[in-house]
């Protein structure tokens, strides 16, 4: 016996109110009389000490209220399940990065697999299993089946990803197995979405906490600096509750450049400075000391080559041109910038300004496309006659989060914004909301097509928006996009789990960090789109060209490998002993209807008594 929603027991306070009303009604009618001799004929017993006299109406109301409270609180009975039967059990696995952490000689997922396999092996005949996994998204590996070898194969085929688990993913996973009689969740910690589950679902859910406390150090950030100008920085954080030794190595284009040994106190971080780098190229930071999680032990960054960045800025507003030039100079102090209105900038003027070279980047603000070719293009507040169809013009919008960095510390209120129809090959970078605009609004996006890297910012940056200290997130977004556009076209550095788009005329062979190779056909529009789910280097051969994608992983919640006890109000926690002994969870039988019927009967009986009293003693007695 138990309660599905104990919080609703608060309604039991109404019984207290009823008792107060009852006592108040009793005390109200106390009358002092000259003598009780006058009332001897009433033949009513003297009452001196009884606190709650036997008033049938009162007790009926109390019983009805108690029954209603218990019905609201979801009183249920645990019924013993049938020894054999056709029960449906769902095995839900967390495949986020923390499940890849090593506890001794095996990973947490190995432990989860072993528990699940024991469960499958000891299952009663006729019992069916489903295997569902989730990380960034939910995946049904095997729907309900009583084919044990298939279930075992599905369990054994599970692999952890180097991504964080999304709250929506666990909910989606549970939704897909909502028909299950029992749900066994294997995860290192109780996902937030599960803690807020409806109690009826939570009762069916059995949480198997996987893993033990492990030390872990992670590289949380890597900045290459500017070659020969400014040093780079690498941030290392101790994610565990004990001090760890960290051996940090920095390589430039595969050659060792710097090395640092440090002991990090619990939950402390160190910002390691290196360089300046002698030349541009791929910078990799690597923690050499073994720890619980390998995925966050390496990180990649790109240092632009020594040549000066040549930028072209087109805007009708001179203030905007000035601000954007400052941004380019901040990204590359040696950059050469040509700026002007679209009508004023002819190819000859540009060639003269940039020394005859093709611009590395063209930033086009609120202007139509120009015939001038550039290696990469950043569109800011593009007009309707631009490359992206404009669905609506907003006077005000708000930026809420970035896909690569997460939610902003505080929402950023922006000015005029255009709602753009973006092509599929572009990946959203920043989201927000607009006034009287339903749904999410894409405020910035990045992608690569046949014309090279393209990025777009949907909001206007007039009135020195980028230089406003209160609009720092807008400036950071612009700088990040400029840096991303300025990278070599055959090299991308992305966070794990994000989409990578590449121009492709045919199928691409992708060699993953673990050495396996997959073939991915191109999508619509000659664009290859895939998600790197493991940290490391992806070697892509497409159309005879080689392109490299480096995936960085870090998530504070996943990298924290300490095992926290599950909350008291969460679903029941099962141990390995339960699985071995074949103990089955009882079937839940809610008593809501029975209690509601009981309350209804009490009210009906009370009504009948009232009618009887009214008929016998008059309406004034009721």
């Amino acid at each position, binding site marked *: 016996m138990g309660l599905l929603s104990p919080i609703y027991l608060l309604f039991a306070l109404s019984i207290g109110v009823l008792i107060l009303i009852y006592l108040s*009604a009793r005390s109200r009618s*106390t009358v002092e009389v000259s003598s009780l001799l006058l*009332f001897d004929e009433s033949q009513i017993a003297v009452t001196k000490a009884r606190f709650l006299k036997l008033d049938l109406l009162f007790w009926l109301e109390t019983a009805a209220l108690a029954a209603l409270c218990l019905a609201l609180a979801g009183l249920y009975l645990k019924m013993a399940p049938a020894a054999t039967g056709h029960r449906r059990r769902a095995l839900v696995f967390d495949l986020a990065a923390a499940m890849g952490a090593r506890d001794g000689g095996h990973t947490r997922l190995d432990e989860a697999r072993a528990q699940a396999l024991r469960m499958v092996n000891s299952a009663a005949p006729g019992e069916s299993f489903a295997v569902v996994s989730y990380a960034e998204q939910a995946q049904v590996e095997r729907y309900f089946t009583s084919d044990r070898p298939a279930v075992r194969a599905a369990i054994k085929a599970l692999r952890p990803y180097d991504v964080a688990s999304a709250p929506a993913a666990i909910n989606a996973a549970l939704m897909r197995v909502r028909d299950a009689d029992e749900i066994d969740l294997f995860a290192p910690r109780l996902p937030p979405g599960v803690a807020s589950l409806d109690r009826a679902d939570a009762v069916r859910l059995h949480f198997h906490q996987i893993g033990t406390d492990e030390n872990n150090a992670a590289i949380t950030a890597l900045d290459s600096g500017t070659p020969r100008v400014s040093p780079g920085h690498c941030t290392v954080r101790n994610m565990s509750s004990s001090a760890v030794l960290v051996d940090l190595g920095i390589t430039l284009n595969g050659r060792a450049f710097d090395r640092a040994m440090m002991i990090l106190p619990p939950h402390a971080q160190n910002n390691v400075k290196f360089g300046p780098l002698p030349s541009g190229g791929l910078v990799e930071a690597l923690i050499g000391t073994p720890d619980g999680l390998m995925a966050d032990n390496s990180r990649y960054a790109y240092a632009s080559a020594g040549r000066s960045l040549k930028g072209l800025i087109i805007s009708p507003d001179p203030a905007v041109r000035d601000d954007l030039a400052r941004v380019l100079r901040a990204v590359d102090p040696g950059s050469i910038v040509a700026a002007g209105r679209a009508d004023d900038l002819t190819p000859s003027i540009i060639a003269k300004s940039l020394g005859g070279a093709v611009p590395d980047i063209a930033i086009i603000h609120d202007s139509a496309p120009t015939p001038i070719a550039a290696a990469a293009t950043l569109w800011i507040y593009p007009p309707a006659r631009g490359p992206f169809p404009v669905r609506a013009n907003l006077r005000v919008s708000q930026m809420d989060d970035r896909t690569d960095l997460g939610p902003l510390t505080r929402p950023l209120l922006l000015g005029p914004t255009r709602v753009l129809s973006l092509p599929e090959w572009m990946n959203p970078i920043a989201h927000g909301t607009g006034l009287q605009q339903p749904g999410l609004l894409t405020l910035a996006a990045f992608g690569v097509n046949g014309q090279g890297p393209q990025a777009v910012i949907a909001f206007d940056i007039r009135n020195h928006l980028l230089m406003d200290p209160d609009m720092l997130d807008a400036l950071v977004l612009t700088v990040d996009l400029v840096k991303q556009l300025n990278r070599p076209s055959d090299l991308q550095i992305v966070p794990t789990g994000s989409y990578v788009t590449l121009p492709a005329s045919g199928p691409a062979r992708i060699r993953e960090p673990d050495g396996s190779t997959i073939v991915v056909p191109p999508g619509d529009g000659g664009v290859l789109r895939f998600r790197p789910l493991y940290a490391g280097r992806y070697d892509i051969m497409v159309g005879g060209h080689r392109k490299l994608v480096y995936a960085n992983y870090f998530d504070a919640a996943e990298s924290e490998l300490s095992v926290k006890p599950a909350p008291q109000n969460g679903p029941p926690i099962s141990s390995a002993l339960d699985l071995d002994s074949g103990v089955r969870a009882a079937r839940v039988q809610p008593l809501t209807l029975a209690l509601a019927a009981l309350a209804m009967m009490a009210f009906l009986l009370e009504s009948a008594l009232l009618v009887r009293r009214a008929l016998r003693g008059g309406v004034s*007695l009721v």
Partner: protein
Amino acid sequence: MTPVVSMMLARAFEPSFLQRLDNLVLGIKRARTVRLGRRALGRVQGSGIELESFKDYSEGDDLRFLDWNSMARLDTLYTKSYRVERETEVSILIDCSASMGLPVKDDKFGLARVLGAALAYVALGENDPVRLVSFGGPRDQLFYRATEFYRRRESYASFRPMLTEIKCSGATDMAAAIEHFLNQRRPPGVAFVLSDFLIPSTHYKVAFSHLIAARYEIKVIQVLGSRESMGSLGPGAYRLRDCETGEIREVTITPTVADACRRRVEQLRNDLYQHCTANGITYAAAVGADNLDNFLVRELPRLGLVR
């Protein structure tokens, strides 16, 4: 004292009220023929002024009453008997228990005090010694207070302080009060007892038996409130508390129960009346303060309490 009570009591000293009492005389057995030379019952005042009769002398008669003139003329011995002018002590006992104060709107206590004062005024008109006695008080602690005897109507105002100061409280212990009253060893007289008599019948029966044994002429006036006699509580559930005993009873008043309560009041009155009639006690019931004038001028003469 509530304003209602003050107004009620104030009437007892209004000239117009007293004027209506001027012509009334107490209906008491005042004068008895005293057989000279015998031990007479009651208080014998030696000789009177008014000659009643003659009789032959018999041995043992008091020679002081021998009619010497008759003997000289007729040579026969006669003794004279006189109608003795006797004064009768009138004691007016007022119940001051808590029950006399309820129901408050009925003002039973005010009515009892006015009646006591009126009877005292009438008694003073005959130059009889009159006193007021109040009794009541907390449980197990008798509150007893009495004025001195006054004989003239000019002294009527002397009763005012006591009538003003006495309050309703405590239980009615009538037997103890009467016992205390008789312990003062006064000659028997007339005792007016004013009370609601809402006590068990055995209590007032014991009290009356003591008075009868002491040869008192007893006049009982039962004072009840009009609401009390008709049932002041409307239909509903009540928790009743006896103001004297503190006993609590939970009662649901229905029309049936209300009728039963009215019948109970009538039964209590009838019991008292029956007991009084059987023991030669004059009984009168004063119900409701509004009926004061009617009670004094019509009811009391009808019952012979006054003439």
